């Protein structure tokens, strides 16, 4: 008979200890890149932050004295992500509503769900090439080629799957009783969705939308093919139809320059990009946590 007391030397206990420490070690390794990347960028980029950065145009590389600021790229990123949201949110939420509320699990909805999953896995550069072929090279948008508008469209393709999926899942979490309650007093499907189910799922949908925006804002590849880059201030509406700078492409361009001033600007832009994406992610976490606590009212 074995003793009931815990025996360290027992082979199963030794194995258990070993695998526990191994998995802890792997978990630690896994988090290292994040810690290194974020701290490195915070240190390197944080040192470059000054007020000129937010207000000036970047100077063309070669002039080694002063690199200027990233104002056009910052505004450009805001505009391009806004355009992407304007396209992706209505289409994505609408599609999600169809999947969760109207579809009855037939072949069409299965096809859409499958398609959305495939779209989520499509490399971002493909989205860029697609818009390039469809819009940029054909000059279909009032004769303009590279433009902020085209950039927004490319990013909207990347946002779509996230928005559709979270809308679909958020709506599915709304208890059926609530739908029945509304339909049972003679509300139409449309009123039920608009007035009862969508508001109930609002926060989880909003969380998904915010995550989608965060993903899109940091993309470079699709923008290289579509929005390209610009050194100049965005001054008016018509600038939408011309090349537009963005933080991600600015980093890509300037980090590869041989001049120190431009490299520093790229670090500063990285800093701002990381901070904004991080805060958007944290914001969505708070939103999600808030949803969970309010659900049990």
């Amino acid at each position, binding site marked *: 008979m074995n003793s009931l007391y815990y025996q360290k030397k027992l082979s199963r206990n030794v194995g258990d200890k070993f695998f526990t420490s191994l998995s802890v070690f792997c978990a630690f390794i896994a988090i290292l890149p994040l810690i290194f990347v974020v701290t490195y960028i915070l240190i390197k980029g944080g040192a470059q932050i000054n007020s000129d950065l937010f207000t000036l145009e970047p100077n063309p590389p070669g002039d080694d004295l002063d690199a200027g600021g990233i104002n056009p790229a910052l505004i450009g990123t805001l505009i391009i992500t806004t355009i992407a949201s304007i396209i992706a949110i209505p289409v994505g939420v609408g599609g999600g509503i169809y999947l969760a509320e109207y579809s*009855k*699990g037939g072949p069409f909805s299965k096809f859409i769900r499958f398609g959305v999953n495939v779209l989520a896995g499509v490399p971002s550069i493909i989205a860029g090439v697609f818009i390039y072929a469809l819009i940029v090279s054909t000059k279909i948008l009032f004769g303009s080629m590279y433009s902020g508008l085209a950039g927004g469209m490319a990013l909207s393709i990347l946002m779509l799957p996230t928005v559709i999926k979270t809308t679909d899942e958020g709506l599915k979490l709304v208890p059926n*009783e*609530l739908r029945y*309650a509304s*339909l049972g*007093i*003679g*509300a139409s499907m449309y*009123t039920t969705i608009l007035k009862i189910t969508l508001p109930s799922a609002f926060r989880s949908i909003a969380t998904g939308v915010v995550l989608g925006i965060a993903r899109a804002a940091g993309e470079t590849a699709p923008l290289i093919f579509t929005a390209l880059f610009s050194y100049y201030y965005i001054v008016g509406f018509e600038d939408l139809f011309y090349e537009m700078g963005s933080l991600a492409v600015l980093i890509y361009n300037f980090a590869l320059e041989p001049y120190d001033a431009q490299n520093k600007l790229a670090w500063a832009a990285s800093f701002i990009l990381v901070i904004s994406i991080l805060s958007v992610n944290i914001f969505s976490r708070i939103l999600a946590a808030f949803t969970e606590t309010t659900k049990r009212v």
Partner: protein
Amino acid sequence: MIKTNKKIPKNIILSLEDVSISYGTFEAVKNVFCNFKRGDITSLIGPSGCGKSTVLRALNRMNDLIPNCSLKGTVLFDGTNIYDKRVDPVEVRRRIGMVFQQPNPFPKSIYENIAFGARINGFTGNMDELVESSLRKAAVWSECKDKLNDSGYSLSGGQQQRLCIARTIAIEPEIILMDEPCSALDPISTLKIEETMHELKKNYTIIIVTHNMQQALRVSDMTAFFNAIEYEDGDGGKVGYLAEFDSTKKIFNSPKEKTTQEYISGKFG
């Protein structure tokens, strides 16, 4: 209007004629003939799986929302077959309201819970008055009057259920269907709901599904006893049927069927 030529007595508000309901290929209940009288409370009782809730949901086309659910036969409401292709189920549900097993108020204020249904039904009168009268009729006004702007969830389970009844009353239906409205409630709340039902009887026809035979005895004028039998081919599946339909007194005191007697006395169920 989509009327049939058959003569139906004026006091019959709902009439089931040879109704069979299936989920996919599985037949849940078959060959139901049943007439519901205007102004009566009719209770549907029977063991689990006998299809009484299925029949109740068929009366205002809530079964449409369940995939694969299909109905054969006719359900005549005021002489109109509500399963006719030309009938709009939304309109049917406005005339035949429903209260569910679990209290399910909307995540809105108490006031909005009542006003929502009225508003979508094109109510243009005094909304404050309607909210008050509906809550009064559902016997929950005294508990709600000081917190009309609070969430419907702030009420207790029993109060929530009466709020749901008030919400249904507010759309002025002709019939109120209740699917085990008290099964999630404590005895005191149950009693209050039953009192509410007695009040409502003056203006509405009520059809209630209940597992509680004492409740059927207390509240209803007519009782329909549903039972389930195994299929003739004997693969273990069961199909529901209407075993006996009579006045509540007769069902509980001198039922014609042996199974009714056995169910009433608690031998199975």
